[in-house]
């Protein structure tokens, strides 16, 4: 990441990401700082803007502050970097470092590590650039003056607005370890340099044989520079101490001046290379900070990617007395209704055209007709389905039809066997399992055979007829309206409407009635009664009619009670307590 990807906070001087709107360290606003990318992007429009400003302000007014504003531009007031020989002195730095600096000065570096200060100056040498930069510096200077003199309410971030900090940044800061407590002590400076570089590499680097363009990293250069700076600073301090000692021992002005010469020379070594050493140190600090942030982010990602097992604390279970009261009330009501209305004759159901059509079609079945019964229901609803189906089977038994059963689920095999036993039909009645559900039924309706059928192994889907359509009547038994819809959608178009009958549960009545209305099925039965209210068979569901009515009555009572309870709770609350009243 290059240095251009950062912006320097004008308040604390630290680097921030270019996308940041506030300084990550001092929380000051960064919005008003012109970013390098923005300046570069707006370079083409700059001449037009400045021309407009020049027309607005006038030539005299624009030229006047140019000298002052020029000092605000980076590099404008800084001196030109001195040649290496003049700054450092070839005797004070290693020859390999001088070589590196020489290469950087002559060839330039992409990172701008060493030539950062010289770039604006080199750019100023372009023809016509000077006329452009002078009004630009004036413009920037006026912006800076207006910001520093005006009320800084927009720039200063109030403490209360710290809550607007992004969540991820808060978490990073919370997880940031204190350096004196948990920071892992890593080698820095020369020690890190020695760890990362082998002796051979250093030797090759000293001899100028090392290809630093491809191998040498900018941060290593920065570390090297930092190490040299530290050494130079120590030398300066030692020289100052020695000079002080000499001064104390000399006691004359001449002796003091003589002693100060060495210190000044050493000081010049350290101070005279601000362009490379100080930048390298800043770069090293910035890289170190970002490495630390990257480590923290990596830790967050690692932590969050781990599976979390939320430990649920076992709360002491309260005795829910109302639950038990409700259960007891339900059972008591069931028993009471069952006993009270046990001997009452079952009421006739409402007239149902679909039911009437169902029984009319069933009565019209000829003797020895092929009738197929498709079982597509679950054991949980077997009581109701069998109650509805037993009168149908009894009727077919009297008509002496060729009955065969096919189950779409494995459970259907023993459910079908149980059904045959309950209706006293011969157990030799054909009962097969059709794998594949409605898709297999579709294949059968289309006259297809299973993939594995061979002449030696004639395993058709439904054995008493090769194709589904060859049956005179198909009774589809289901407890799920969606399954019935799928069946009718896939198979219905291959069948004549008078070929299809459906036996289902009361829950499916509403959803299947439209298919009878659209004449896609010949009839629909969802109860053991005929449409005229005659009970067709003595089955468990019909015997339990009082209990069924009792249950429906209890449920209706619960619904009314819950309605009034909710109403009471609503009005017990004060207006506005829950924001609704």
């Amino acid at each position: 990441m290059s240095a251009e990807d950062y912006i320097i906070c004008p308040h604390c001087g630290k680097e921030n990401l270019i996308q940041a709107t506030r300084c990550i360290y001092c929380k000051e606003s960064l919005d008003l700082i012109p970013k390098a990318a923005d300046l570069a992007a707006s370079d083409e429009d700059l001449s037009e803007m400045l021309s407009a400003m020049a027309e607005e302000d006038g030539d005299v007014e624009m030229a006047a502050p140019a000298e002052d504003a020029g000092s605000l531009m980076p590099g404008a007031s800084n001196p030109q970097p001195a040649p290496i020989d003049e700054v450092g002195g070839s005797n004070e730095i290693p020859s390999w470092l001088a070589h590196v600096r020489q290469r950087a000065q002559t060839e330039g570096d992409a990172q701008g590590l060493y030539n950062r200060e010289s770039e604006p100056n080199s750019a100023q040498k372009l023809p016509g650039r000077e006329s452009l930069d002078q009004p630009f510096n004036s413009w920037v200077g006026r912006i800076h003056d207006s910001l520093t003199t005006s009320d800084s309410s927009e720039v200063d971030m109030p403490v209360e607005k710290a809550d607007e900090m992004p969540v991820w940044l808060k978490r990073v800061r919370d997880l940031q370890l204190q350096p004196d407590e948990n920071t892992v002590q890593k080698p820095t400076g020369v020690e890190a340099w020695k760890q990362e570089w082998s002796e051979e590499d250093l030797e090759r680097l000293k001899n100028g044989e090392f290809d630093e363009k491809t191998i040498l990293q900018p941060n290593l250069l920065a570390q090297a520079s930092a190490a040299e700076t530290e050494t130079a600073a120590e030398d300066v301090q030692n020289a100052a101490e020695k000079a002080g000692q000499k001064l104390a021992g000399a006691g004359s002005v001449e002796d003091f001046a003589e002693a100060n010469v060495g210190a000044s020379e050493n000081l010049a070594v350290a101070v005279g290379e601000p362009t490379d050493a100080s930048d390298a140190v800043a770069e090293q600090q910035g890289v170190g900070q970002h490495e630390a942030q990257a480590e923290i982010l990596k830790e967050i990602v690692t932590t969050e990617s781990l599976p979390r097992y939320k430990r649920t604390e076992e709360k002491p279970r309260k005795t829910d007395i109302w639950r038990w009261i409700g259960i007891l009330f339900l059972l008591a009501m069931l028993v009471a209704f069952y006993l009270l209305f046990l001997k009452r004759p079952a009421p006739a159901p409402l007239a149902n055209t679909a039911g009437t059509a169902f029984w009319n079609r069933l009565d019209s079945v000829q003797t020895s007709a092929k009738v197929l019964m498709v079982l597509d229901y679950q054991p949980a609803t077997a009581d109701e389905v069998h109650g509805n189906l037993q009168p149908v089977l009894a009727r077919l038994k009297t008509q002496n039809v060729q009955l065969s059963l096919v189950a779409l689920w494995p459970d259907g095999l023993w459910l079908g066997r149980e059904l045959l036993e309950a209706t006293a039909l011969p157990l030799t009645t054909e009962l097969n399992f059709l794998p594949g559900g409605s898709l297999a039924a579709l294949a059968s309706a289309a006259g297809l055979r299973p993939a594995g059928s061979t002449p030696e192994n004639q395993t058709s889907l439904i054995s008493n007829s090769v194709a589904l359509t060859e049956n005179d009547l198909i009774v589809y038994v289901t407890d799920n309206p969606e399954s019935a819809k799928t069946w009718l959608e896939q198979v219905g178009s291959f069948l004549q409407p008078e070929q299809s009958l459906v036996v289902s549960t009361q829950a499916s009545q509403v959803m299947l009635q439209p298919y009878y209305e659209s004449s896609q099925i010949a009839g629909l039965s969802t109860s053991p009664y005929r449409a005229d209210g005659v009970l067709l068979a003595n089955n468990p569901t019909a015997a339990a009619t009082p209990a069924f009515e009792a249950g429906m009555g209890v449920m209706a009572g619960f619904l009314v009670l819950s309605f009034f309870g909710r109403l009471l709770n609503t009005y017990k609350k004060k207006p506005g307590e829950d924001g609704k009243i």
Partner: protein
Amino acid sequence: MINLDLIAGILGLLLTIMVFSYLAGDNLFFRLAMHLLIGVGAGYAAALLIQLVLIPHLVQPLLLGSGNAFYLSLAVCLFTLLLLTVFLGRFNHLARLPLAFLIGLIAAVSIFGLARGTLAPQMLAIVNRFSPELLYKDNLPDWMALVKAAAMLLGVIAVLLYFDHHFSRGQNNAKLAPLSENASGVGRIFIGITFGAIFAGVFATALLALIGRIAWIQNLLMRWLGY
């Protein structure tokens, strides 16, 4: 001599009571009964599928068949093996091939069936409700049939407008005509009636299942007591 009916009755009674214990909250006995139900069901289905599907429709044609039956079974076997590669971490992408085939086939069949088996016939049924044969009875207008047909048409349009209104309300700056607003309110009434009827049916089915189990327990106890 062990009476199997007695053992089966006791087991059935215990399992029924274990399932009913859910009324007092989730507990160990209810979970045990559920695990038993799922385990026994899966084992029964697996055994049945091996016996009735895999052996006669896959294994036998591969071993004994010839011609088209053999090659078709080979293709099915290949797809099955590809599906099993889902357990192999390195080659699990091969399992996408049979899955894609199945999902694509089911999607195509479902869409075609939905259009052919539900959408078109239901729309035609609404239109046919206004046919003169149904609206006239003994050369006189059958007003009840006319009201029924109009109510059906109104219900369909109102429900469609309700869903259109419901989804348009989520969009910004969506303004609906007052007529559309009122019609969508009527649609809500139709939907409420439908859901109420479905709820009553579901409750009736559940209640019948409960009654069936209670009646079974009652019969069992009466038989043991000699009544």
